[in-house]
């Protein structure tokens, strides 16, 4: 989505004055004592040694072999037999000119049940306008060989399911498409446009196809006919359903702000058992262990015990560690039999192990703070919320910062599920761009130190300034301008499609 970031931003900002942040102090008598015997319920085993920007969009783990779709390097393959996954294949994309050689990208990967072939999809965007799906032979995972490629007349391929010679593609408003693979030829054999379809992700089990269909919810199709999928039933789900995984008679669905559990024992009458609200934005779901679902929620990787749908409980919540300023969890998969969980972010693939542990889990919001323009000597303050998403009390033992920052509390205890608001005051020492940080020290077993970046006097329009003047046309030709904002609260969402 944003691999041109550095190029676009290069030269925009002068190097700021960066203040040094001190180290966490030893335990102090006036502060609550930390607990050092916590075991994190999701243990980080290692991160693949990829420092470049690859944007992991989908993960399929087959035992110790992990297949990735990436936004910049197409299909990549990793060996996860050790803690840190090792890259076997760096970059694979269809060779017939469909993929951009500089930034080959794919959105989703589907592995055949025998694990000897897989299919990758590209939904079409500014970089690669043509949507396609492509089958590769991966009998030897270190040498994927292209077998066949299919290009739709129109529309955009998103998720995909693959078994034997059958492929099912979710094509947003262009419906659910059935394809067959014969040698190097892929043929469309049928397509179903159910009412209000916005197909994101299909999962095949026998002759039943279960599809996450955006605002339409979860749909069940009969695909035994070998032609177009026949709609059997719909489970209506509030929000947009974008990913689904099955466990026994249950479907776990990633919806807009919830993990939804659907009973699919009766395929003609699927029942929503619970729509459990979550903190982040679910992008992907995987079964991490029997009754435990891992969810890639953009801000963190979280896990939920769904054994009893009437009382879903969070079992882990993990910021995926990264060297970059913003760690974001974009994709997840897991091997339930071994309790291994794989999380993907902008630059790296991470392997975790599900453990029978319990502990506190720190979360900070916001992850970075802009203070706008401050004249020398002027100060301003913001609230930093320290959350505990774990199941044991969190002891914050210290909050340290540079001389230009002060906080109103430096140690406290946060109960499970609770939060504490800390006031952070920033004093400007210069009219130039300033950058500082606060470091929060705690007894979270895997994040004993975590930082929030603070900045001020960054050149350009900032908080407190008037919005820049604009007058622009929308896709229908209507003009919108600054005057239309007057008296309204307005969200301006700047985006790019790549």
């Amino acid at each position, binding site marked *: 989505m944003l691999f041109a970031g550095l190029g676009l931003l290069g030269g*925009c900002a002068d190097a700021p004055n960066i203040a040094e942040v001190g180290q966490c102090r030893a335990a102090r008598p006036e502060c609550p004592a930390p607990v050092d015997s916590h075991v994190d319920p999701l243990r980080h085993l290692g991160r693949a040694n990829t420092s470049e920007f690859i944007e992991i969009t989908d993960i399929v783990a087959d035992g110790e072999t992990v297949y990735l779709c990436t936004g910049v390097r197409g299909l990549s393959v990793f060996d996860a037999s050790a803690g840190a996954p090792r890259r076997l294949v760096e970059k694979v994309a269809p060779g017939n000119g469909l993929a951009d050689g500089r930034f080959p990208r794919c959105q989703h990967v589907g592995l055949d049940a025998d694990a000897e072939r897989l299919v990758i999809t590209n939904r079409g965007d500014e970089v690669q306008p043509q949507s396609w799906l492509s089958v590769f032979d991966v009998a030897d995972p270190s040498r994927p060989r292209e077998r066949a490629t299919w290009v739709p007349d129109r529309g*955009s391929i998103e998720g995909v399911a693959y078994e034997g010679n059958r492929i099912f593609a979710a094509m947003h408003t262009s419906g659910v498409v059935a394809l067959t693979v014969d040698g190097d030829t892929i043929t469309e054999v049928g397509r179903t446009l159910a009412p209000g379809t916005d197909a994101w992700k299909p999962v095949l089990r026998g002759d039943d196809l279960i599809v996450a269909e955006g605002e339409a919810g979860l749909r069940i199709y009969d695909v035994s006919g070998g032609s177009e999928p026949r709609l059997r039933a719909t489970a209506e789900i509030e929000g947009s359903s974008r990913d689904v995984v099955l466990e026994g008679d249950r479907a776990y669905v990633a919806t807009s702000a919830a993990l939804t559990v659907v009973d699919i024992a009766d395929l003609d009458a699927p029942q929503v058992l619970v729509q459990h609200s979550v903190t982040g934005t679910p992008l992907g779901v995987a079964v991490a262990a029997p009754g435990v679902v891992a969810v890639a929620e953009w801000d963190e990787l979280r896990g939920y015990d769904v054994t009893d749908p009437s009382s879903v409980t969070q079992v882990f919540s993990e910021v995926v560690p990264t060297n970059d300023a913003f760690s974001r969890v974009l994709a997840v998969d897991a091997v339930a039999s071994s309790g291994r969980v794989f999380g993907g972010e902008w630059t790296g693939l991470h392997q975790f192990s599900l453990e029978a542990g319990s502990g506190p889990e720190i979360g900070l*919001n916001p992850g970075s703070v802009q203070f706008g323009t401050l004249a020398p000597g002027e100060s301003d303050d913001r609230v930093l919320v320290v959350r505990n998403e774990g199941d044991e009390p969190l002891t914050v033992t210290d909050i340290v910062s540079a001389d230009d920052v002060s906080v109103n509390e430096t140690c406290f205890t946060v109960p499970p599920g609770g939060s504490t608001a800390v006031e952070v005051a920033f004093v400007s020492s210069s009219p130039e761009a300033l950058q500082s940080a606060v470091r929060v020290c705690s007894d979270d077993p895997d994040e004993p130190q975590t930082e929030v970046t603070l900045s001020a006097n*960054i050149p350009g329009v*900032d908080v407190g300034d008037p919005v820049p003047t604009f007058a622009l046309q929308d*896709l229908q030709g209507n003009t919108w301008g600054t005057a239309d904002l007057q008296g309204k609260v*307005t969200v301006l969402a700047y985006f790019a499609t790549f």
Partner: protein
Amino acid sequence: MLVLGLSGRGLFGNESTQTLAGFVEQTGVTFPILRNDVTYFEYAVPDGVISPFPLDVIVDQQGNIAYLRHEFDAEAMVDTIDRLLAR
């Protein structure tokens, strides 16, 4: 309450109406999408921001910026909107 999506430079210049229409279809967004934005480059970009997009800006009823973040943070955005609407 108004939501506007602003699209400016992509990788190869301003993004085409066709590309944007495809993006709207893929994402299912219903708010107006404005083309050929140039105001993006007027905003402050702190050091350490690796991603140019998304940039989310919330403007108060007086036309002043109340929120500016280079990473999507739904919780903080909802908090800001609630606070502004309650004024």
